[in-house]
């Protein structure tokens, strides 16, 4: 067993871990941070993505001992911790643009997207697609994820009318940006 000191989502932990323990298993099994999930065993799917000292990592490719002395942020730590706290603009955009269905890949997808927007605050569709290609989604076909990331990017740059950082998640109303035009051909 090796002792580690880690700060996760704003709280400090001192724990003994087996040297072989992966960061994702430490988060899930020892800290109960089950918002971060395991989707594969080859670091292909990205479902376990967290931020290690501010940078996106797949927490199944990091040993817990490597996180000693580091700050870890998970999906549970990007909005305020108290109930009803403002969502992160990327979280809100995934909701508003229907960027998730089953939601299993979503925590990793959101964490990867936040990192992408830090590197490139105004990505094109293709840059988003390349930027998140390490994260797999089986439900959405990615189109609404791309739309969500670009929508969040605009908000975070301050291009949107409202200040997204200050306002809470919008209540559920019809998404005006989302254009679907059914042609009524009633038989």
């Amino acid at each position, binding site marked *: 067993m090796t002792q580690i000191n880690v700060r996760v989502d704003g709280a400090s932990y001192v724990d003994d871990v087996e040297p072989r323990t992966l960061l994702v298993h430490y988060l*899930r099994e020892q800290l109960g941070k089950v918002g971060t999930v395991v989707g594969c*065993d080859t670091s292909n799917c990205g479902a376990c993505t967290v931020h290690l000292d501010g940078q996106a990592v797949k927490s199944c490719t990091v040993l817990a001992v490597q996180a000693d002395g580091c700050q870890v942020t998970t999906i549970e730590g990007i909005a305020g911790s108290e109930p009803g706290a403002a969502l992160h603009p990327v979280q809100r955009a995934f909701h508003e643009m229907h960027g998730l269905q089953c*939601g299993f890949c979503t925590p990793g997808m959101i964490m990867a997207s936040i990192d992408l927007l830090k590197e490139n605050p105004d990505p094109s569709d293709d840059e988003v697609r390349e930027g998140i290609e390490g994260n797999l989604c*089986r439900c959405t*076909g990615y*189109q609404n994820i791309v739309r969500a990331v670009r929508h969040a990017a605009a908000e975070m740059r301050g291009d949107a009318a409202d200040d997204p950082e200050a306002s809470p998640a919008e209540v559920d109303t019809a998404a005006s940006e989302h254009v679907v035009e059914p*042609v009524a051909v009633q038989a």
Partner: protein
Amino acid sequence: MTAVEDRPVGSLAPAKEVGQARLRKEDARLITGRTTWTDNMVLPGMLHLAVLRSPVAHGRITHLDVSAAKERPDVVAVYTGRDLAEEQGSLPCAWPVTPEMVNPGHPSIAVDSVNHVGEAVAIVVARSRTAAADALEAIDVDYEPLPVVLDMEQAVQDGAALVHDHIDSNTSFHFVFDGGENGVAEDTEQAFADAEVVVSRRFVQQRLIPAFMEPRAVVVQPSGDNYTLWSSTQIPHILRLMLAMVTGVPEHKLRVIAPDVGGGFGGKLQVTPEEVLTLLVARRLGKPVKWTETRSESLMTAHHGRDQIQYIDVAADREGNVKGLRCRILADMGAYLRLVSPGVPVLGAFMFGGIYKFPAYRFECDGVFTNKVPTDAYRGAGRPEATFAVERIMDELAVELGMDPLELRRKNWINAEEFPFTTSAGMTYDSGDYGAATDQALELIGYDELRAEQQRRREAGDPVQLGIGFSTFTEMCGLAPSRVLGSLSYGAGGWEHASIRMLPTGKVEVVTGSTPHGQGHETAWSQLVADQLGVPFEDIEVLHGDTAISSRGLDTYGSRSLVVGGVAVVNAAVKVVAKARAVAAHLLEANEDDLDFRGGTFSVRGTPGSGISIQEIALATFASHDFPEGVEPSIDADATYDPDNFSFPHGTHICAMEVDTETGFVKIRKYACVDDVGTIVNPLIVEGQVHGGLAQGIAQALYEEAIYDADGNLTTGSFVDYLIPSAADLPHFDTGNTVHAAPGNPIGAKGVGEAGCIASTPAVVNAALDAVRHLGVTDIRMPLTPERVWRAVHQGGDGGERATAGTNAQGASSAEAAGASAGSAPIEGDHL
């Protein structure tokens, strides 16, 4: 005191919820990580189960020693197949498609022999996940290898090695549907004998892996002789029934819960060996037990999909009028029959004709055993296979006749004024307008411009050629009318159940038997009920996925949730309103017939200012102080809905594909589709379902294939080798809708969950062929890897010859195919 909001009596009804792009209620927990995946669950004293799996595809277990594993630290128990043989029963197959179907039985854990790589051989139960996994290494097993059967066309030959030596062939069943013999079509053999043109092709539907993102997990908590089982399943209701029948745990002592479930796509429509084993171990030990699979285990042992070899013959006259369709199918069952393995090709049996008016139709299918993991439902289940075959053969026929593929389709499809139309497969298609959807899709993709560019590239001899492919498809959804399932020998019905509970504060609980895993039932069902009861969307909670809460249900698959389960919800709401009407009449001192119900409020016709809301009636019912004589004090209601017919969504999908003839690299340039899924309850959710389906259908065409080597090892056993597309691998989709409400369905919905997946695959392949057909290419084997495309362009054939040995992708000549197929031989050549 009342908790019910005051609302102005007699105000205009609020805007209808159905049709609005409501954002999803489900999202709040999913985007914040406050989820309840099965693997999240921790219980006091919980033990962990790990499975030792067979490394050989076919063999006899000659030696199995677990004694060293039992001595490993933190190991509580180790079991072999022999230990559990008396209590494990056989995993169920609920669909004996013919009376003679051979089911070899399916142990959850191997007892004497193993029949596919990954089959369970021993299980370790330990205090931690890692201790259980570590102890697997201490188990000693010897196998006597037996001949490995992998190729279906060889497996059905006389004298072939057997997958199961206690049955006398590798053929499980021979299913036939003949439209002529059933009196719904002309004689097929005569149609072919008389035909001016016959085109025959052999298509390969490669084996796919559903690859839901959440790996499967099971937790069982015993409490006395009661058991609660959480599972990452699509089918908690069916699972409860089947586990009771398999293990002997009485049904009323077993509660099954599907918490948050991370995708299924048919892959979690199953009763798995691990669910049975976890329950058996928890029963033996009296302790909570958890099993969670790794991704490698999932790809290797969760059921696969597709895997058919199709011999398709089409007959026509020289003017392009189709005369008959004949399909002979080999369907790979894998080593065993799982829940609906044999039913998958049979679901396709009635859809091979697609949207076309074939006067004659015959379908034959052999279910074949091989030493691979079983196949079962995967998004579309039988219908993608059928759609691929007909949409590909129509293109081939068009080439043979020198016709435009769209012109040939228009000439033969069912016209809008011909609905309802009974096909030569005996299905009655409900409604639609194939021409309208096609016209809209052509506009959406910019068809004329693309054809002009294709011409330019052809003439310039551009190394990157452009092709355009169509799929004008229909599918059958809304599984299913119980009587029809009965006529096809399925073991259960196809109804769905719902309950509505009116709470004293006016809030509403909707209980549905349809269990979601990403489809957005909580949102869509809330929209349905808000319209029916006139209560706010936010006042409705949808409960599901727990057999103790939702006691009756048949779960989610086959695009049935809205079409069947949604109607049950609507019907329950209608009953609630009827019951509330009696109470309202009493409280308003009026005759029931004089009451209007609008916007959630009953009012006396012609008496402005009178009125009581249904939410106020809920409180009055709770108190029951002033209730009509002889009426039970409840306005709650249940409904069970069994549809009369399937529904038939349709659409036109068009793919524009660039093919680099120098490298074989294919790239979708544009993809447009117009789907008619009937009335749209939530356009946001519908569009999302279409996108996701497209991704999976395109992935079959371009990326995915489960490949076994010559020894029966799955070589695509991780996401490194099994190519789920990433965002960078998929194009932008242009989607649209036409709307023909489903007649006979109170919502008017037809189902959308599988449409994109069913329609897209042939559009993509047809597009690639259209790009290179002038270079002499007539077929390219899926998936269209650069190597296969390059070989097809430069070396002829379909590019599949160099695929890994032991897969159906391995080339077989049509002469071999003829001998392999049951029934009459395929007709060689294109002409008679």
